[in-house]
C-alpha cells in the first residue's frame, strides 16, 4: 500500500518564530514574580491579593496524575512566566502603535488585524505570549454596550465586573493548573454582553506563543447578561521547538437567565515532531455556569494540536431548564496524547445536556474520553445524552473511554452510547474504486465521522477545522 512517510512532507505551517524584543520576567516562580506581573499590569490591590492566595494554595497542591497521559516531570522553576513584546507605552491604543513584526505574524497566520481586511463579522483579540496586543472592532461593539477587550484592560476599566465574576466559576484553588494560572495569569480576553443584546458579530481570541521556555497562562471571562447571546471563537498556534512548553489557561463563562453562550475552539498548538519531541502541554480548565433559568452554554472543540491535551470544558447547570452541550473532535497522531471530555453537573430542574465526542487516533496516538454526568437529587426531570465514538487508524494507536454517570433522582434519565471503529480497507477500496485518491478518501471518511461536531462550528471555522483535520492526519493510514 501507500508509503505513509511520503505524506509527511507537509509540515506544521505555523512553526515560525517572530524576531522581536521581549520584556521578560526572570526564570522561575515565587512571590516576587507574582508581584512583578501584577505590577506590570498596574493591578489593583485586590487582584494581587487574589493571586497570592492562589499561589500559596498552589504550593500545597500536587500536580494531578490521574489522566491517561505520560510525560516527564515539569520543572516549574525552569520556566518563564511572563514575556511580552517590548513597547514604548503602557499598551497599544491603536493598531498603528502595534509592532509591525507582530502585525505581520498575525497576517502570516491568516488573522489580519486591520479591520478593513477582516471578514466583517468577526472581532479579534490577539494574544501574543503573555499579553493582548490588539483588539479589533472594539468601538463598533461599544455601540451595543458590549465590552470586548483584553483582560488587563478590563481590570483597569471595568474593575467591578472583574471583581464580581473572576473566579466565580473556576475558583483560584479549583485544581493544580487553575491555581497556577490564577497566580500568574498575564492576560486573556474579557467579554461582557449586556442585557438583551445579541452580539452582532463573532468574537474571537487568537492565541500565539512566540517566546521560548515560556508558559502561556491566559484567562478568558465571558459574561452574558439576561437574555443576551454571543458566539465566541478561539484559535491557537505556536512555533516548532524541541522543548515542551506549558499552556495552562482558564476559561470562565457565565450565562444569566435566558442567555446563550456558544464557545468554539480550534486548537492547533504545535504537536511535537513524529517522535514526540517538543510540543505544547495544553492543560486547561474551562467551565461554564448556567446561572439563570433557560440559559444555555455550548462548547465545541476541535483539538488537533498539542503534544498533550488535558481539558474538560464543563457546564454547571444551575438554572432551571438550562442546557449544556459539548461537541468535541480530538485527533491524536504520532506520539500525541489527549485526555479530554466534559463534566455536566445538573443542579436545576429540567436541565438538559448533550455530549458528542469523536476521538480519532492514528500511529501511536493515545486518545481518552473522560466524562462525568451528575444529575443531583434536586435536578428533577433532567436529561443527558452522551455519545462517544472512537476511530482508529492503524493498530498501534489507542482509544479509551471513561464515562461516569450518576443519576440521583427518579424523574431524570441519562443515555450513553459508545462505538469504536476502524477506517477499514473496504471503505477505502470503495472510495478508491470510484476514482478517489487515498488522501481524499481518508479525509472524506474522517470528515463524515466528525460531521455531527463540525456542523456546530461557525461557518468560517468549520472550513478551517476540516482542513486542519486533513493536515493532522496526513500519512496516517498506510
Amino acid at each position, binding site marked *: 500500500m501507500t508509503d505513509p512517510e511520503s505524506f509527511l512532507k507537509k509540515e506544521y505551517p505555523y512553526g515560525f518564530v517572530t524576531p522581536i524584543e521581549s520584556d521578560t520576567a526572570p526564570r522561575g516562580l515565587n512571590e516576587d514574580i507574582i508581584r512583578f506581573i501584577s505590577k506590570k499590569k498596574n493591578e489593583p490591590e485586590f487582584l494581587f491579593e487574589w493571586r497570592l492566595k492562589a499561589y500559596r494554595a498552589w504550593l500545597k497542591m500536587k500536580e494531578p496524575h490521574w489522566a491517561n497521559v505520560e510525560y516527564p516531570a515539569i520543572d516549574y522553576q525552569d520556566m518563564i512566566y511572563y514575556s511580552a513584546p517590548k513597547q514604548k507605552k503602557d499598551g497599544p491604543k491603536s493598531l498603528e502603535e502595534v509592532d509591525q513584526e507582530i502585525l505581520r505574524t498575525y497576517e502570516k497566520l491568516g488573522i489580519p488585524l486591520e479591520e478593513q481586511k477582516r471578514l466583517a463579522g468577526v472581532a479579534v483579540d490577539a494574544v501574543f505570549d503573555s499579553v493582548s496586543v490588539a483588539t479589533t472592532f472594539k468601538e463598533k461593539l461599544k455601540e451595543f454596550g458590549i465590552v470586548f477587550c483584553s483582560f488587563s484592560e478590563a481590570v483597569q476599566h471595568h474593575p467591578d465586573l472583574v471583581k464580581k465574576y473572576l473566579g466565580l466559576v473556576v475558583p483560584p484553588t479549583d485544581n493544580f493548573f487553575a491555581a497556577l494560572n490564577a497566580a500568574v495569569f498575564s492576560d486573556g480576553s474579557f467579554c461582557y454582553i449586556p442585557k438583551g443584546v445579541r452580539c452582532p458579530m463573532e468574537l474571537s481570541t487568537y492565541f500565539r506563543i512566540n517566546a521560548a521556555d515560556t508558559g502561556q497562562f491566559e484567562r478568558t471571562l465571558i459574561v452574558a447578561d439576561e437574555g443576551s447571546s454571543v458566539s465566541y471563537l478561539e484559535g491557537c498556534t505556536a512555533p516548532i521547538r524541541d522543548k515542551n512548553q506549558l499552556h495552562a489557561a482558564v476559561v470562565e463563562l457565565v450565562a444569566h437567565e435566558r442567555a446563550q453562550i456558544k464557545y468554539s475552539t480550534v486548537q492547533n498548538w504545535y504537536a511535537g515532531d513524529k517522535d514526540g519531541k517538543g510540543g505544547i502541554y495544553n492543560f486547561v480548565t474551562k467551565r461554564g455556569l448556567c446561572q439563570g433559568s433557560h440559559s444555555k452554554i455550548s462548547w465545541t472543540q476541535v483539538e488537533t494540536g498539542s503534544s498533550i491535551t488535558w481539558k474538560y470544558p464543563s457546564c454547571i447547570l444551575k438554572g432551571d431548564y438550562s442546557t449544556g452541550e459539548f461537541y468535541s473532535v480530538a485527533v491524536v497522531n504520532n506520539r500525541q496524547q489527549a485526555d479530554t471530555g466534559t463534566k455536566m453537573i445538573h443542579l436545576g430542574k429540567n436541565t438538559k445536556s448533550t455530549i458528542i465526542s469523536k476521538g480519532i487516533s492514528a500511529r501511536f496516538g493515545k486518545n481518552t474520553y473522560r466524562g462525568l454526568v451528575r444529575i443531583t437529587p434536586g435536578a428533577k426531570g433532567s436529561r443527558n445524552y452522551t455519545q462517544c465514538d472512537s476511530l482508529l487508524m492503524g493498530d498501534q494507536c489507542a482509544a479509551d473511554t471513561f464515562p461516569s454517570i450518576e443519576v440521583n433522582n427518579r424523574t431524570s434519565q441519562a443515555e450513553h452510547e459508545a462505538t469504536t471503529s476502524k477506517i477499514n*480497507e*473496504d471503505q477505502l477500496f470503495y472510495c*478508491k*474504486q470510484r*476514482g*478517489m485518491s487515498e488522501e481524499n478518501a481518508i479525509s472524506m471518511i474522517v470528515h463524515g465521522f466528525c460531521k455531527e461536531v463540525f456542523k456546530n462550528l461557525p461557518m468560517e471555522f468549520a472550513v478551517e477545522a476540516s482542513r486542519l483535520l486533513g493536515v493532522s492526519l496526513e500519512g496516517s493510514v498506510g
Partner: protein
Amino acid sequence: MLEIKNLHVSVGDVEILKGIDLKVEGGEVHAVMGPNGSGKSTLTRVLAGHPAYVVTEGHVTYEGKNLLDLSVEDRARQGVFLAFQYPIDIPGVNNAYFLKTAVNEIRKAKGLEELDAMEFLEFLKEKMKIVEMDEGFLNRPVNEGFSGGEKKRNEILQMAVLNPKLAILDETDSGLDIDALKIVSEGVNRLRRPDRSIILVTHYQRMLNYITPDFVHVLMGGKIVKSGGKDLALQLEAKGYEWMKD
C-alpha cells in the same frame, strides 16, 4: 478492450481462480454465472484491484495496458467500474458530496475542468432519473440505512454518473424484490452503449430476463467450464449447475 489470460488468484494460501481466460470486446455484455464459492466475486474484485487478492499467474490487458500494474484509483479513472455486491456504508458523508468528489477526481485525472456544485447537481439529477431515485437521496449518507434495493440502485446510479468503459456488476440482482430488479435492470439497459462493455456476475438467471447478454460463461471451481450464448443461461436455470460437472 479486456483480455484475461490464464489468471490465477489467491487469498492467503488458498488459490481461488485457477486459470481464467476471458475476452470482452467493446459494447458486449458478458454474463458470468456459477454456484456459490466458484470465484465469481473474486474475479470482479481482482479486476478492480482489491489489495487482499494476489495474482500469482497470468495477465489482464485493458485497452492495451497491463491492468494489473494500475492502482485501484487509476483503474477507476481509466474507466473500470465495479458495482459492489455489498456496498459499504460511509457514515456522515452524503451521496451528493461523495459522487461529486469522485467525478471531479476522475475529471482532474483526465485533464478536464472540475464541475462546480451547481453544474454537478444538475448533471446528477439528470442521472438519477435512470434509476428512479428521488432528491431526498442526495442528502442521505452513502449507503447508511439504505435498503438492499436502494443500495443496488445507488450502485447503478454511480455507474451512470462515472460513465465507465468497463462496468463489472457483482450480483447486482441479489437481495432485490421483483420491482427493484426491474428498475435496476432497466437502468443497466439504458446504460448499454456500443463503446461500453459490461461483465455481469450473477448466481441466477432471472436478471438475464431483463438484460440480454451476448455471452454467458459458467465459472466453477475457479475455472470457466463452459461458454455460450444467452440460451446457456436458460439451460442452467432448468438443470442447475450440477449437470455441468459431468
